[in-house]
């Protein structure tokens, strides 16, 4: 059973983190990052070749995290796999006890390191949610054929409150919920006012009662990094004053953490926000400090049924 689901359903303000798998088969960086964060988060996301750069597969990272005692979230994008492969990999994840899956469309391959590749996009992220939901709730593959053993999965999706058309963003979330999303991890929040406006619309549609929304945050180390994100990362809105704060700070790294902690404090106050998703890109080691300073430590303790669980025998 998904520990993340338990934490969210308990009403606790959940904390998830993110680990980018290495560009090699070396398991040491994965284990190191998992060990750095696992006491401070309820679940750890493993990205799926994010920004279209080839990395160790998300499923392998999830299994390593699972063996190290963490609850992994397997990210799956529609860019590289058709519905045959996506369903196959969900069965594989279930077989290995990976029970949280985050369904995403995926960054276009032209942004990554193999821009000459062919993309798939057989289904989109919303269709993927619905396929997985039916695999679980109706024991049926996308073609209607029966699945003989139950599929257990806690389904998540991403959402960007900032991308255009802005008026459609809350509606798009409603579609994700209708398709099967049980939790949402949002794009990184820097412009908290606009996030609050989006949450207002989300509450207007009653979606906060149907899905657990985890606000995304990214701790940044420098004004330059934030400027880069402002200019280069699609779907982000970064207010100028945050960049100025980092420029003026004696210790930009510390100020970046301050901004992140302040954002989490604000998120905790917003009705309908069920947790925070910390995407400390190549800076996983900062997660414990952020979680502690945001008053979110210790994390809920796992019961016996979640410890030393061996899914292969159940």
């Amino acid at each position, binding site marked *: 059973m998904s520990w993340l689901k338990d934490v969210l359903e308990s009403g606790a303000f959940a904390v998830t983190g993110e680990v980018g798998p290495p560009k090699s088969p070396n398991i040491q960086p994965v284990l190191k990052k998992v060990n750095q964060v696992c006491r401070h988060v309820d679940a750890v996301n493993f990205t799926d070749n994010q920004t279209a750069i080839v990395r160790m597969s998300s499923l392998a990272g999830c299994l390593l995290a699972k063996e190290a005692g963490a609850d992994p979230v397997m990210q799956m994008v529609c860019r590289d796999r058709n519905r045959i492969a996506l369903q196959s990999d969900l069965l594989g994840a279930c077989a290995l006890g990976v029970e949280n899956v985050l369904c995403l469309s995926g960054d276009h391959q032209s*942004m990554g390191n193999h821009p000459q590749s062919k993309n798939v*996009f057989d289904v989109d992220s919303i269709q993927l949610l619905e396929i997985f939901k039916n695999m679980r709730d109706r024991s049926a593959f996308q073609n209607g054929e029966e699945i003989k053993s139950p599929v257990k999965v806690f389904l998540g999706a991403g959402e960007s409150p900032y*991308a255009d*058309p802005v008026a*459609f963003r809350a509606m798009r979330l409603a579609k994700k919920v209708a*398709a099967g999303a049980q939790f949402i991890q949002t794009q990184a929040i820097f412009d908290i006012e606009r996030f609050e406006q989006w949450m207002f619309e989300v509450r207007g549609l009653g979606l906060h009662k149907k899905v657990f929304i985890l606000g995304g945050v990214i701790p940044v180390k420098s004004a330059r990094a934030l400027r880069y994100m402002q200019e280069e990362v699609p779907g982000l809105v970064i207010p100028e004053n945050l960049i100025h704060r980092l420029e003026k700070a004696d210790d930009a790294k510390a100020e970046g953490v301050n901004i992140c902690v302040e954002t989490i404090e604000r998120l905790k106050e917003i009705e309908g926000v069920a947790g925070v998703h910390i995407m400390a890109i190549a800076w996983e080691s900062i997660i414990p400090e952020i979680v502690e300073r945001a008053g979110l430590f210790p994390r809920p303790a796992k019961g016996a049924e979640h410890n030393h669980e061996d899914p292969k025998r159940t």
Partner: protein
Amino acid sequence: MIVGERKPIREILELLGDNTTVLVVGCGSCVTVCLSGGEREARELASILRIRGQSAREVTVERQCEKEFLLPLEKEIEPVQAVVSLACGIGVQAMSEMFSSHRVFPGLNTTFMGMPVEQGLWEEYCSGCGECVVHKYGGVCPVTRCAKSLFNGPCGGSQAGLCEVKPDRDCAWQLIYDRLKSQNRVEELLQVQPPKDWSFSRSGGHRKMSREDMLL
């Protein structure tokens, strides 16, 4: 129409190699309209080839994709060593079938099915997916005009109405949203669209169409 773009001269010369007597064949249909492979472009390419030392002539047929238009070319093709077709990929293949003892080189890269959106600018509008659904999207094709072919709404990266993948292109979903909003039909977008049946598309394999009533 089918839109194409002429290959660079250097590439055409490389393709031709040692073949020095060449017939350049233009096409009077789509590629004439998109100014890449019609009579004028055929004349232009033949003169460039002559300047580069080739013995080149040109001829343009009404439609290279229909064999009856190619029949009269037989006499002109016979003496040449190679043919450069300025038609789309269909014309190049039709020529290759008709004159199978000759090498037919493509002088054009067939780029997409689209239309001129302003003077000198063409844009892709259709992928030939075999099952048209544009009526659900305000007449804007998400398969073709969204970089990720999303059927259920925009991705998380469009900004200022532009595509995150090619920031000089409109975000198809912004266009879809705006069109449906103007028609008071936005709520139709709330319906979750199921996975597309791609078996009608190129994914289903090479396609053919037959009309019983037209077969001889």
